[in-house]
Each structure stands twice: as structure tokens, then as C-alpha cells.
């Protein structure tokens, strides 16, 4: 509500001249007739840079382009800041994660000498706060755009059949020599044909709308979103079941992380169903009844075992994400999509159509906010500052997963390193220890770490860790690894005592 008012105000502030005159930051090519009333509909508004999607990557690109002197517009059909896969998503997440970390602290209070710290949790309170903070963030985005004199266009974008790439929003046409698609993605869903009753479940988007903490949650998926949500719900007191198709979670992470995270989930009391798939979902008075089929995929002779979880009040599908490309009319544009519907781009974010670029979730690669932001800025420098070689280096991008405890990872897994360098050239250093915080608590958590090194000089090509504090630990190491640090550089760095991160510079 307040947001819409803000938009109107913004537009009028920019176009302070009569309504039919286009924004001062753009040039209007007049239509064939000069009738004023026709002009408004036939005119194509031109910008230097047109961004479809107001998520982090798109906004970052637009802002940087504007700083470099380009006239820019951002087309957004939702809240600014992106609700799907964008910044806000991660902020949502971290807030919920922090909340659940408090639950863990509360267990430790007695061990640390605090008496009387038995706590109850109010879901409503944290939801209200979180939502308030997110709308505050949206306001910041809006102000930043205003400051940068970037026009926002509200509505759904669709490419027209014009010879020159042109976008239509609410009956008005816009064009630019450079058009960026940064529409993000949305959680994948399962159809009722594939799994009867599947639509009785929600996705991570729905998770944020929950008005109370579910008593019994069932999550489906083994990716980072599933694992993060399972950890949060379980810590906040929901009985949580996690259904995974294979033997462990996070199977594309280093084996150490995959196995450790699977173990941590089980240790934290999450009811883990391996080699299991949801067969059907029924709604009953007592909640959802979920029928499961379990079969070890590695054992060909194994028979499928059927189980049922009853009285579930929240079924969450977290089985992946899909790009937001529907409705853009991309097939007509010569913009190639991969089989999953993601836009195919080269290392410079170029699509297969000249003058059209894409980045972020819509490309299905490295689904991380800072990656999209960095890619957007690099692109702006290339297009509007003449820096022909400006592109994002997609190797060595640090990633944190807010599990309990958090995971930090960068570079190659040990298996990937062996595949590209050969077994004899790869040396992995691992350690596992109980962080000092847990030496005096009854609740114990381990920290595991692995350094993957290659060659005689033992260049560090991968770092994988899970443990308390790994979220804050990784960034500095990411800088060093990107710089090409070797094991000797790690060893020659003085430790900071007593921390967990010092283990990374004292590995043997």
C-alpha cells in the first residue's frame, strides 16, 4: 500500500513537467502522428540501459550504470529488492537462523552459570519484526534508486515483436541498446499428477508467510534450502522430518561436508528419511497424512517400503528453483534457454541475442545474492565504461549455508580437484575438533575443516568447513584463496588465539 503511493510520488517527482512529457532522463522518439494523446501510447521510451527485474543483481547493475552516466530504468512486478532468490530472501533467512541460534544458546545458559533462563518462543513477534525490517530494506532500495535517478516501471515486462529489442509494460513500450534480464527464480513445485496431494504443501516462499510455528513439519529436499529450513524449524520447536532421495544431504558439496551435515541434522533431533520419496499426501482432520516410499537406490533387489507420517501441519517442498522466464516472450527473441529453462549466457553475461544480457538466478548459476550484485556491476562497467574485459570470475566464490552449525565453502571439492588434477597432485588436510565454547556445555557440536591443495607448491584450491562461526570465518580466507595462497602462506600466518579459525593456519 504505502509502497504503491511511494511509486506514484516517485514518478511525479521525476517527471515534474506535464504528464505527457517523458522523464527528463530519457529521449522519446515520436510516433508517426504528432497528436499528443496518441503520442503517449505509441511512443517508445528510450534508455541507455533497461533492467527487467528489481532484484539485487539488476539493481546493482542499474545503479552502477547510472553512476557511469547511463540513463536507466528498472522494470519490476513485485517488491523492490526481489522477493524471490534476491537479497531479501537471504535476509529473511539469516533473521530466522539467528532466531534459532538463540534457541541453541538458551540450552547452554545453565552450563555457563545462568539460572532461570527457560524460554518460550513467539513466532508472531519475530515475523512482524522481520517483515518490518524487510520493508525498511525495500524503502532503502527505493531511496537508492531515487538518488541515482533511475526510473522504476511497475508491471510485467514482455518483449514485443519489434525488430529492435523492445519491452512492453502495461501497454507502454520501452527500449534500450542494452537490456538486462535479472528476473530471478522461484521455488520448484510438484504437480498433483506426479504426487497426488502435492499441492497441499507449500514452498520456501510460503514458509515466510507462516503465521505460527508448525507443530510438525515435513520437508522434502536435500539441497541447502531444505537443510536450512529444517534446522530453523527444528530449533524453534517444530517436530521436523526431512525426506531425502539419496543417502545424504548437500551431495554436490565436499564429501566431508555432506556426511557431517547429514550427521549434524540427525544429532539435532531431525527425523531423517534417507532414500525416500513422497508418494502421496492426504488431508485429514488431524492434519496431512504423508505416504512415503523408501528404497535404497544402490540396492537393485531392495523392495520399496511404505511408511506414513500423520498429523503434519506443514509440508514444505524444497526441491530446487526455477528461472522466472515465463511471459517474457523470450522464444521470439532468439534468446537461447537451456533444457531447464534457464537463460544461456557466456562469461560476460551475454545471451545469444546481441544487446540482451542476463544474470543471477534466471541463468541458474551460482544462486547467490553477492554473485548477482558483482556480475551486475561488472556488466555495467563493461557496457558503460568501455572496460571490454570486465566480467565476474565465477571460480572461487565463497558460499555460506546457514545450517546448524553453519557451513562455509569455496573452490573445488576434493573430488573435483582429483578429477581435474589427478589423485597424486591433490593433498587434502582435514581436522575435526570441539570448539572451545562447547568444552563446558552439555550440548556438543563439532567443527570440521578441509583444505584442498594441489601441486608441489600446494596451492589452496578449496576450503570446506562446518562448525560454529564458519559463516564469519570464510570471507578472509576467500580473499586469500582468490589471491592464489598456498598452504605455506596459511602456515606462515600467525594464529589468533583462541579461535576456531586458527585451526586453518595450523593444519598438519
Amino acid at each position: 500500500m504505502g509502497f504503491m503511493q511511494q511509486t506514484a510520488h516517485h514518478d511525479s517527482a521525476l517527471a515534474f513537467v506535464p504528464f505527457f512529457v517523458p522523464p527528463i532522463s530519457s529521449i522519446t522518439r515520436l510516433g508517426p502522428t504528432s497528436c499528443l494523446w496518441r503520442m503517449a501510447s505509441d511512443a517508445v521510451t528510450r534508455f541507455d540501459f533497461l533492467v527487467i527485474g528489481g532484484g539485487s543483481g539488476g539493481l546493482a547493475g542499474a545503479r552502477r550504470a547510472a553512476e557511469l552516466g547511463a540513463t536507466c530504468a528498472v522494470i519490476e512486478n513485485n517488491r523492490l529488492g526481489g522477493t524471490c532468490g534476491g537479497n531479501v530472501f537471504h535476509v529473511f533467512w539469516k533473521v530466522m537462523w539467528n532466531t534459532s541460534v538463540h534457541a541453541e544458546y538458551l540450552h547452554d545458559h545453565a552450563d555457563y552459570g545462568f539460572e532461570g533462563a527457560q524460554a518460550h518462543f513467539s513466532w508472531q513477534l519475530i515475523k512482524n519484526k522481520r517483515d518490518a525490517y524487510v520493508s525498511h530494506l525495500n524503502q532503502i532500495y527505493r531511496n537508492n534508486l531515487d538518488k541515482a535517478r533511475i526510473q522504476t516501471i511497475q508491471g510485467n515486462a514482455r518483449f514485443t515483436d519489434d525488430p529492435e529489442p523492445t519491452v512492453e509494460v502495461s501497454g507502454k513500450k520501452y527500449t534500450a541498446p542494452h537490456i538486462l534480464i535479472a528476473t530471478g527464480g522461484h521455488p520448484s513445485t510438484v504437480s498433483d499428477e506426479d504426487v497426488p496431494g502435492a499441492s497441499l504443501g507449500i514452498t520456501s516462499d510460503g514458509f515466510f508467510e507462516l503465521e505460527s510455528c508448525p507443530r510438525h513439519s515435513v520437508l522434502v529436499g536435500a539441497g541447502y534450502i531444505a537443510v536450512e529450513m529444517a534446522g530453523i524449524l527444528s530449533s524453534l520447536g517444530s517436530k521436523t522430518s526431512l525426506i531425502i532421495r539419496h543417502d545424504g544431504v548437500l551431495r554436490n558439496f565436499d564429501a566431508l561436508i555432506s556426511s557431517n551435515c547429514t550427521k549434524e541434522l540427525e544429532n539435532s533431533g531431525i527425523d531423517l528419511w534417507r532414500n525416500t520419496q513422497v508418494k502421496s499426501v492426504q488431508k485429514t482432520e488431524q492434519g496431512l497424512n504423508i505416504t512415503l516410499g523408501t528404497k535404497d537406490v544402490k540396492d537393485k533387489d531392495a523392495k520399496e517400503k511404505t511408511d506414513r507420517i500423520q498429523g503434519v501441519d506443514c509440508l514444505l517442498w524444497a526441491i530446487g528453483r526455477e528461472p522466472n522466464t515465463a511471459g517474457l516472450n523470450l522464444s521470439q527473441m532468439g534468446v537461447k534457454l537451456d533444457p531447464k529453462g534457464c537463460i544461456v549466457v557466456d562469461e560476460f553475461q551475454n545471451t545469444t541475442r546481441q544487446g540482451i544480457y542476463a544474470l543471477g538466478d534466471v541463468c541458474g548459476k551460482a544462486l547467490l545474492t553477492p554473485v548477482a550484485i558483482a556480475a551486475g556491476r561488472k556488466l555495467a562497467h563493461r557496457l558503460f565504461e568501455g572496460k571490454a574485459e570486465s566480467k565476474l570470475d565465477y571460480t572461487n566464490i565463497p558460499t555460506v549455508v546457514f545450517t546448524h552449525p553453519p557451513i562455509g565453502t569455496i573452490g573445488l571439492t576434493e573430488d573435483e580437484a582429483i578429477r581435474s588434477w589427478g589423485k597424486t597432485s591433490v593433498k587434502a588436510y582435514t581436522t575435526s575438533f570441539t570448539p572451545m565454547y562447547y568444552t563446558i556445555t552439555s550440548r556438543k557440536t563439532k567443527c570440521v575443516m578441509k583444505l584442498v591443495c594441489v601441486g608441489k607448491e600446494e596451492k589452496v584450491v578449496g576450503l570446506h568447513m562446518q562448525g560454529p562461526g564458519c559463516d564469519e570465518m570464510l570471507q578472509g580466507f576467500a580473499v586469500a584463496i582468490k589471491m592464489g595462497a598456498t598452504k605455506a602462506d596459511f602456515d606462515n600466518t600467525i594464529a589468533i588465539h583462541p579461535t576456531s579459525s586458527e585451526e586453518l593456519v595450523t593444519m598438519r
Partner: protein
Amino acid sequence: MAAFRRGCARWQQVRFLGARAPGRTFAGTHHYDLVVIGGGSGGLACSREAAQLGQKVAVLDHVQPSARGTAWGLGGTCVNVGCIPKKLMHQAALLGVAMDDAGKFGWSIPGPVSHDWSTLAQAVQNYVKSLNWGHRVQLQDRKVKYFNTRGSLLDRHTVRGLDAKGTEMTLTARNIVIATGGRPRYPTHVPGAREFGITSDDLFWLKESPGKTLVVGASYVGLECAGLLAGIGLDASVMVRSVALRGFDQQMAQLVTGHMEARGTRFHWGCVPTSVEKLPSGLLQVKWTEVRSDLERVEREDTFSSVLWAIGRVPETTGLNLPQVGVQLHPDTGKIVVATDERTTVSNVYAIGDVAEGRPELTPTAVKAGKLLARRLAGQSNQLMDYHSVPTTVFTPLEYGCVGLSEESAESRYGKDNIEVYHAFYKPLEFTIAERDASHCYVKVVCDRAGVQRVLGLHFTGPSAGEVIQGFAVSVRCGLTYAQLRDTVGIHPTCAEELTKIHITKRSGLDATVTGC
């Protein structure tokens, strides 16, 4: 040049090794390749490493009880009365803060929450005792002979040991390493200071809560002690003569103390204690002078349950008989004068850690110096300890981590016009929801202004500073430049990412407050 000299020394050492069998033999006494005096972090690391490399090693460790009678086991300051107990109690303090925040995160805690000192102290002490035991076992495993004995030098190869029962012994060694560390200093001109005051040597071993405490001194030890006491709900005050965290970046120091003040720790700036008296009630009455200007001095007083002195540390060299055997002490600090290879003025006597002149008083530097020294003494390496770019973290309620130069030292070394300082005030997400004041959360990167803008110093106040800084220390060691820092993709949403997003220069005068993401 240095490399040449290093090579030369190594050659001499090899020849020396070849000329004599390891260890010299005196009838009825022990003989060792290496005798280490002091079983703290540095001494233990050195002895274990040497033993691992096949040397015959003995360690002498003996803890002289503090003025209040506190004594402890093997492992030195860090394990017993330093880093380890401090960090555990700091974590208790952070839990206290977390409890205040928990309400904002939707948790309601019915009824009042209180903190029981003895539960915490007992848990900390039990853990420390397990570490004492662990060190004993490790020495045994590595075949290092351990003597719970006070050592002193008779001559350059002979160590005399005297245990608590008065039993004497003599050990001879080819090389001797002194790693006796230091102890807290008491003021000499404050009546009652030693009689009624405690130090960090006592704090973590108190059976009862110290209660309302005055901490005298704003060194990192003083601030950490006051911070952890305040965090578990005690009334804590800090008395500061001039500046806090001397030697650290002063802007950062002000943020650290500012945060403590905002969270209820009282600071008495510009104050010098004059006396401590015990009242019949058992409370301590402290009198002090507040120096408001050259002309204006105000006498003040207050009562406390405990007074903790944190006004510095004195090297533990008394009774070692060092000057008599030719080991030179620094005239001002009383520390042992050492060369780059940790050698004292007596060629087979070395000193590492807090007792050595000019070395940082930090566990990891002592550990590393000890290991490297052991390798050199065993003829396995000629690598010297590099004391540059030592990262460190102050575990105050708002942690402060840094590596490299402070802004002041960069300025004095390079000139104000030749450095570029990037900075940002940021708001950790966990502060936002908790509605905590984040005005002290700050990052600062000091760069050489010329050329590739090499990073000279990196500073961070905020949650988990120790965990944040370690990795950046590796990158600084690799020759980090500003561009490389900016080229790294941030990890969102973390505090550490602020260091990769930093772009406002101090010179520009622009507002350095981070907005949005």
C-alpha cells in the same frame, strides 16, 4: 645479507653438532640437548617440537603463587590465567547479551535470570585442569622430561632446579631456552594495592563472585576483564590514566570503550588511584585523583568488592640469575634482549615469548617462535620467525580484531598524504532485529596510497572479530591490495563481507554509514 648470515649460522651449527655428541655428561646429573625453563605456550611448543625432531629435552615449570595465593598447573598464562579462561568467561558474557536480545527475537524468558559465578568458575577451572593434564600427557608422549621445579642458570650450560620441598638438582644442556613469560604488575606507590587487590592471575580462580569491581588499567587485559564481568551482570568500572588499548589503533580503541560505556561499564578517565583500604564491612575503599587539567585535580573515592590491577605485566626474570651468566636484560623493560633468531647475549641461551624484549605478548607468536627455534636448534631448518603482520583480537564485549598497522603508525611511517584509509560503519543483521546500538561496529582498511594500494592494516569491530580476521591475515601475508579485496565476492549476510564492500575513503569526507545491502 640476512640470508647469507642465516646460512652462515646454520653452517656453524652443523659443524658444532658434528664436533660433539649431543649432550654433555656430568656424573650424577641429567644431560640434555635442550632444557626449556618455563612450561607456558612457547616453552611447551618448543620442547615438544624439539623432542619430535629427536632431541633430548627437559622442561622446568614452577608456578610462584600470586600475591593472593592463587597457583595453577602446567601450561602457563594462556591456559591457566589468560586466553582460555578469559574466552570462556567472555562467552558467558556474550550469552548474557544474547539473553537480552532473545526477547527481540521472539523468545520470552519468564522470571528473572541470575548468574551464578561459582557454576561458571567451576566449569572453567575443570576445563583448565583437563588442559593441564593434557599438557602433561603430551610431554610424556613426546618423551620430554618434565620437572615441577623452579629453574635458574648456573652457567651457560647448567640449570639449577629447586622444587617446592627445597630439593635441588642440576641439569646440563647444550642449549637453553628461557620462556618464563610475565606476571601482572602491581603498583608500587598505592598503599593497600598488593594487600587487597587482585590481578588477572586470580580472577578466574575466585570461588566467589568478585562483586562490584574496579579494574585499574585499560590495557586489553583490563578491558576484557571488565567486559566479561559486566556481561554476567556485575557492576564493573575501569580506571584509565590516559588512553585505552595503547599501541592499538586509537579510533578502534575508542569504539571498543564507547561500546562498553554504552552497555553500562563505567569509565573513570584521567584518574590515578592513590590508596586502597579495607573497611570493617569487608568492602574496599578506593581513593583516586581525577586530573581534569594541569591546575584542576579532584580527589574522589568509592567502595568496591574487588579491585583488579591490569596496569601491565612484568617479565618473569627474577631468580633466573641471568645477568650473572651474561644474559643481558633491557634496562627499561627488564626483558631479555634477543636477536632475530631469539638468541640472547649468550650464544647457546635463547628466549621466546613474553619474556623476550620487543616480542608481542601473544600466545601464537610464542608458539610459532618456539617451534621454529626448535627446528633450527635441531638443524632441520633455518627459517626465522617473522613478527610482521601479526593478527590479534581483543575479546571485549564488542570484539576488535586487527592485522597490520594502526592508522597512526601507517601515518607516521608513510605520511598522512601517502596513505588511503577506507572505512565503513555497518550494522550487523543480528543487531538490527535485536534493536541494538550498532554505532560502534566499524571496519577500516589502511592502504598505501601509491601504486596498487597495498593493504597496510585492517581493523574490524563487531561480532566474531577473531573468526573474521584470521583469513584476512592470510591474505595480508600474501600481499593483499585494495583491488583484490574489492574483487572478492562477499558472503551475504555476514559481518565479514563489509570488508570486501569497503569503498568510502576518509579523505573524501563522505558519510561512511552502510545503507542497504
